[in-house]
């Protein structure tokens, strides 16, 4: 009985949200953009006949043509192919680093809010300290120590997002914890774990979903920044930021090598931001119009 009610409430919240989302043109556009990038990432091998890594010295720095729609790079590789394979890398970085942030941030926020007292103070002070460091700087510092590669980029970009998730999770816990029904369930003898997972976590999903989408955007942007600085994925990996950085040296002669990866970064980030804004309006009206 109780179970049924909860499911109904859950579905109607998301069904309502979806109905609102469908009316939001920007959010739809965002979904289409993201869909296109996910498609590229999933079917990269089938979309393009070229190899993203293999160099072809007969095709160095060719400008865009029918054969190579976006031209070739300084090592003769088809740029469109590298951008398509780059989608795979950027999407993976985004998803994994947001998962890191969501998991640890959620865990920290839930425990801080639920247990309160000194646990709350210690955890949230620590989050404040992390927030006190500009996040690009923190990510750079982490990669500087761990060494530049793709995995460490994901760790660095993910760790940086932990405090944001922790704060959101904590504040929804604080709000829900004081509700009468939670008190009632506790009186019925439910344990910490049951209350936390079945009641509090489920009810703090909407703000976390919104935050995850928006954080995906900034994670892709930060990862590309690290790649650009030479601290992310290393050559010959077709990572957008690193591609841009390679193209810098030949900017005057072959500007397309810099232009297109940048557009790819911007479009994918834009897509997640548009969807995130739409989701925020649909799922969490209180956060509307606020940053």
């Amino acid at each position, binding site marked *: 009985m109780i179970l049924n009610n909860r499911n109904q409430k859950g579905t109607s919240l998301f069904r309502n949200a979806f109905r609102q989302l469908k009316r939001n043109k920007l959010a739809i556009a965002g979904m289409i953009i993201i869909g296109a990038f996910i498609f590229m990432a999933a079917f990269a091998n089938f979309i393009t006949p070229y190899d993203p890594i293999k160099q072809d010295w007969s095709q160095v720095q060719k400008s865009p043509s029918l054969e190579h729609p976006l031209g070739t790079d300084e090592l003769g590789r088809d740029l469109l192919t590298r951008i398509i394979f780059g989608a795979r890398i950027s999407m993976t970085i985004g998803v994994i680093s947001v998962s890191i942030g969501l998991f640890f941030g959620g865990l920290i926020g839930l425990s801080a809010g639920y247990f309160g007292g000194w646990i709350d103070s210690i955890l949230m002070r620590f989050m404040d300290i992390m927030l*006190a460091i*500009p996040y690009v700087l923190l990510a750079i510092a982490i990669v500087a*120590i761990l060494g530049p590669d793709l995995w460490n980029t994901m760790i660095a970009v993910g760790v940086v997002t932990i405090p944001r998730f922790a704060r959101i999770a904590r504040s929804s816990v604080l709000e829900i914890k004081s509700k009468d029904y939670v008190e009632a369930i506790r009186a019925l003898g439910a344990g910490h774990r049951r209350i936390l997972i079945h009641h509090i976590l489920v009810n703090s999903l909407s703000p976390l979903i919104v935050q995850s989408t928006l954080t995906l955007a900034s994670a892709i942007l930060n990862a590309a920044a690290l790649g650009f600085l030479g601290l992310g994925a290393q050559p010959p990996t077709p990572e957008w930021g690193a591609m*841009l950085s390679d193209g810098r040296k030949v*900017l005057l002669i072959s500007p397309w090598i*810099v*232009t297109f990866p940048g557009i790819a970064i*911007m479009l994918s980030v834009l897509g997640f931001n548009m969807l995130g804004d739409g989701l925020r309006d649909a799922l969490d009206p209180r956060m509307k*119009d606020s940053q």
Partner: protein
Amino acid sequence: MLSYTIRRVLSIIPVLLGLLIIISLLIEFIPGDPARVMLGQHVSEEALASLREKMGLDKPFHVRLGIYMFNLFQGNWGDSIREGRPVLTILLERFPATFELTIFAMVFSSVFGVFLGVVSAWRQYSIWDYSGMIIALIGISMPVFWLGLMMIYIFSLQLGLMPFGGRISTELALSSPTGFYTLDALINLNLKALGDVLLHLTMPGIALGTIPMAMITRMTRSSMLEVLNQDYIRTARAKGLKETRILLGHAFRNALMPVITVVGLNFGILLGGAILTETVFSWPGLGTWLLDSIHARDYPAVQGGVLFIGAAFVIINLLVDLSYAWINPKVKYE
């Protein structure tokens, strides 16, 4: 006000301490032997031993942290391995370049952001509003390093209108007592140099200020919209006041607080973003130096640089907070 100020000033101590601990801990996580990582494979055992001793790597973490803190307060931030000079000296030399750029970006982003936001809110759902919001949306999604490179390609390489890097043209000699070139040019009454310095600041400033501008636009719009729906605005309109007077005198003043908050918060984003912008525009500031130190595995320099930028961020946030309390007395009673 005094008790609020004291409380707020004291509250940054644990944050600074935490920052210091995190930064010192990072060295612990270097895989392998930090001394060997820093000096490379082909060095003598004596050189390694001497570096270990100098950096306290032979001592346990808490002892090393204690020594590092003690030295920090005496102005000894260690020596850069790459340059062989005190880290603090280099940081102070480089700081004005970054700070000048940050301020320029701040001014750019505030002026344009507030303007776009006010116009968007004033004509909600008009073409102005939609364009403003689309600019803001693209702005927050913009990879600033790419924007910088595109500006260099178009305005410097193709049109030849703008310098593509550095702080001042090489042929202009400017004595630099403050390190802030705009101030130096004014002190020297050198208008040619001032123009040149401002020209060099333009593109990096715009690149760096884009994301904050977008955020300020959004904040100003939503804050203005809230105020414009208030009863006193309707009253002002009913009284027959001029639209500009209502907009600027009544609405904007009351919409200002959240905008100032966002402007303040953006300092951190700017300091972080400065690392990227400086790299693109070969700007001789903290960011390029920190990045070079990272590539050279010059850990004392990295430690000092991160600490310096982090501390600057914390202190600027403190000043922003204190200025709110001064502008808006309500803040103190929270």
